[in-house]
């Protein structure tokens, strides 16, 4: 970071106005130090810089320079997080910001191994930005809203591969790498591409020109094409360095043919002129300043003047990002597990509830049926016992009463004693039908008395048996015996009850109500 501070000091002496991007980069170098990132998750001072970086990578259509996170920026951050493999919450947290700066700021050394682990789409964007900035590609990274498919996607990949091969050729021609690099998206090539300081420092600074080495054996290049390639690359490398120093230029807008605009502002030459004036160099007197080894010598001097403070340890960010991804993955697993557990418990509870509801419903139906059967049985037993009682009452009414029930002085009148000696008086006005009806009713009463007698005898037998059983056996066995006896007695009583009902049905209506009248009186 001290390197950047030194570069800004150089720019501070210039008379030109800094553009918004330069200001943002200054704020980045002054406040956005990676070491204090944990303190604030969404520090508004980082918002403009982050917005610019996202725009450079193609996650935003334009850079509006706002200091607040609006909907577009939130979506862009989320898209970046998604390609980075982080939870896409749209928050500009420390990890997100560090990763973004690392890919885009040109001021950090980035490990090739970290780059190769990135998602292919994000790596392609970052590589595209570097290659474009160094003049190896004509267009900046495509906007994310443009989806490339089919032949266009293949062409895009082919163009990246070819540009990367050009970079490997340049590395061979300018001696950036110690050995020969293997073309392709490998860690060594990517580490070199993403190490701007190393590229600048590796530039040959002896004399006024540049020394070219033998071309790459796998990537042969004709002399003229090599010179054109080297010229464009070195010019863009200087442009990026001037941009980092805070001058009014942007990477990728350089035209090697000459100054831009009437005043030459915003071009490499105007920036070089300002740089030479700021550093009070001899080249400033030349009306058409040319880029040469002097520029990189001066940059080396600036870098040596600066602090030797180490840059941010990439391994630290790597570990942080790795831990964050691991935690996010673990959190996802826990959430999935929790959701499944919750779902399982919910299903189990639902099943148990359904089962209980079903079981209770069945039990309720059973109990209702049992109760219905018991009620019917009890009602039937009650009706039958009631019939017996009525018949017994009528029988004993006949037994005790004199004259016998139904006696009528206008028809038949019977006066009897307890031993059933009878005096029968038949009225002279009695008809044959009346006499017959009387004796029919008398027969019914007699049968009722007989049935009543049998019933009392049965009760007596039962009482006797129970008393004997109780005397003989006590406890559960005695109770069981009594119950058996009761059951047997009930069977006989039910047979008598049936007979009683038939008998009651034979009585005329008025006679049948006699028992009720007697019971009511009783």
């Amino acid at each position, binding site marked *: 970071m001290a390197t950047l501070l030194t570069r800004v000091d150089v720019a501070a002496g210039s008379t030109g106005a800094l553009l918004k991007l330069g200001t943002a980069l200054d704020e980045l170098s002054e406040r956005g130090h990676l070491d204090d990132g944990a303190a604030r998750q969404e520090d508004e001072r980082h918002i403009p810089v982050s917005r610019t970086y996202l725009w450079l990578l193609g996650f935003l259509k334009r850079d509006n320079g706002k200091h607040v996170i609006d909907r577009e920026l939130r979506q862009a951050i989320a898209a970046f997080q998604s390609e980075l493999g982080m939870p896409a919450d749209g928050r500009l947290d420390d990890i997100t910001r560090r990763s973004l700066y690392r890919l885009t700021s040109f001021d950090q050394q980035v490990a090739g191994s970290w780059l190769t682990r990135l998602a292919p789409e994000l790596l392609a964007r970052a590589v595209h930005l570097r290659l474009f900035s160094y003049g190896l590609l004509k267009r900046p990274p495509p906007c994310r809203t443009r989806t490339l498919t089919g032949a266009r996607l293949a062409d895009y990949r082919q163009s990246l591969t070819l540009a990367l091969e050009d970079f490997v050729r340049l590395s061979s021609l300018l001696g950036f790498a110690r050995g020969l690099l293997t073309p392709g998206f490998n860690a060594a090539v990517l580490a070199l591409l993403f190490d701007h300081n190393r590229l600048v420092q590796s530039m040959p600074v002896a004399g006024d020109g540049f020394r070219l080495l033998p071309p790459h054996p796998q990537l042969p290049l004709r002399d003229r094409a090599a010179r054109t390639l080297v010229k464009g690359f070195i010019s863009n490398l200087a442009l990026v360095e001037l941009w980092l120093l805070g001058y009014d230029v942007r990477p990728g807008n350089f035209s090697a043919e000459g100054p831009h605009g009437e005043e030459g502002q915003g071009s490499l030459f105007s920036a070089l002129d300002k740089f030479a004036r700021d550093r009070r160099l001899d080249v400033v007197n030349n009306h058409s300043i040319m880029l040469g080894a002097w520029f990189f010598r001066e940059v080396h001097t600036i870098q040596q003047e600066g602090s030797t403070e180490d840059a941010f340890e990439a391994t630290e960010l790597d570990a942080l990002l790795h831990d964050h991804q691991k935690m996010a993955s673990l959190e996802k697993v826990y959430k999935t597990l929790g959701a499944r557990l919750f779902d399982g418990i919910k299903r189990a509870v639902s099943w148990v509830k359904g089962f209980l509801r079903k079981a209770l419903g069945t039990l309720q139906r059973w109990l209702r049926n049992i109760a219905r059967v018991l009620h019917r049985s009890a009602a039937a037993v009650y009706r039958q016992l009631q019939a017996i009682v009525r018949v017994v009452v009528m029988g004993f009414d*006949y*037994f005790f009463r*004199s*004259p016998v029930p139904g006696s009528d*002085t*206008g028809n*038949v*009148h*019977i*006066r*009897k*004693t*307890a*031993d*059933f*000696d*009878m*005096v*029968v*008086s*038949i*009225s*002279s006005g009695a008809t*044959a039908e009346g*006499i017959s009806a009387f*004796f029919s009713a*008398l*027969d019914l009463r*007699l049968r009722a*008395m*007989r049935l*009543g*007698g*049998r019933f*009392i*005898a049965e009760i*007596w*037998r039962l009482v006797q048996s129970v008393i004997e059983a109780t005397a003989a056996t006590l406890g559960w066995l005695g109770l069981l015996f009594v119950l058996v006896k009761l059951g047997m007695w009930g069977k006989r009583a039910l047979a008598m009850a049936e007979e009683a009902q038939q008998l009651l049905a034979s009585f005329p209506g008025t006679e049948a109500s006699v028992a009720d009248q007697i019971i009511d009186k009783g």
Partner: protein
Amino acid sequence: MSFTSAFKSITKNIKDLSQLNVRTYTGVISANIDGDDAEAMLNSARQSGNLKLVGVTTMNLDGDVNQFISNDPDIKDNLHTAHFNAVQASQRSRQAVFDMFSVAITRVVGKIDINPED
């Protein structure tokens, strides 16, 4: 209540269980021929000619039956039939009473060791 006390209450008005008497009359029946003096009223009505005797049946326990049936032509057959029905009803009623107490009777009798050879 024991069978003894039951018997006492039931047989309070039983005069003679060894004999069964049924008498049947016909004529104009007074409304109050019941009560303690009913027998006297019946005799008075019979003597005055208001009541005619249809039949008298007496049955002894040993099976002897004494029966009087009037041959008065004014007495129709259905009155005789009524008398026989009354006799039958009396018999069956008495049988029913015996049946009712047969449990106690059986128990009492069962406790007595009877040797058929004796």
